């Protein structure tokens, strides 16, 4: 039973990691990165590491996405075309 849980967590981590890299839209890949953090916490709990799980859940879901979304917000007004961010500029611009 333990190993089934472990393998599920590993599969989820690898899938979300691949998703983070292959996503076109930056905001979506930030969420995928946060998903990696959450599933990593689940695997830490499974692997009997409560301390590390607490630290990882707080960083993975609060601090990391916050920093990334602030950076994205700052970038939106600076770079010329938003195609780089993977977002289409809304038509009326």
């Amino acid at each position, binding site marked *: 039973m333990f190993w089934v849980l472990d393998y599920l967590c590993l599969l989820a*981590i690898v899938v979300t990691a691949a998703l983070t890299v292959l996503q076109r839209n*930056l905001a979506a*890949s930030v969420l995928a990165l946060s998903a990696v953090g959450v599933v990593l916490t689940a695997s830490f709990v499974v692997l009997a*590491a409560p301390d590390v799980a607490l630290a*990882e859940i707080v960083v993975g879901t609060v601090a990391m996405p916050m920093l990334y979304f602030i950076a994205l917000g*700052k970038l939106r007004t600076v770079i010329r075309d938003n195609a780089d961010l993977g977002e289409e500029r809304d038509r009326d611009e």
Partner: protein
Amino acid sequence: MIVVNYVAAGCVFCIGLFAVVARRDVIKIVMGLSLMEASTYLLLVSMAYRRGATAPLLSNPPSGQTQRDVVHGTVSDPVLQNFCLTAIVIGIAVTAVFLTLAVRVAQHYRSVDAADATALRG
């Protein structure tokens, strides 16, 4: 077995490294490094795991065991978990610095494309 954890950690490390090497988007490079970090945490905690181990906790030992049993019983390795905590602190510190730099570079070069930020070369 735990080898699957090691292999998965190696895969996430390679995915992160590929993102840093092959993606031209500055924010994607930062995410690649965050993924490499995540793989180091996974590798460390997997190396710390022992078969049938409980957490290295002495406060309320599992049913029927006294503190002495836990001390000498099968527990996961607390020293590696300490290193993992250090790695998480280093990870959040480096990511904060990274993103500030990425925004400043984008403000100057007006693009998030790493191929544009190549004024220093040769």
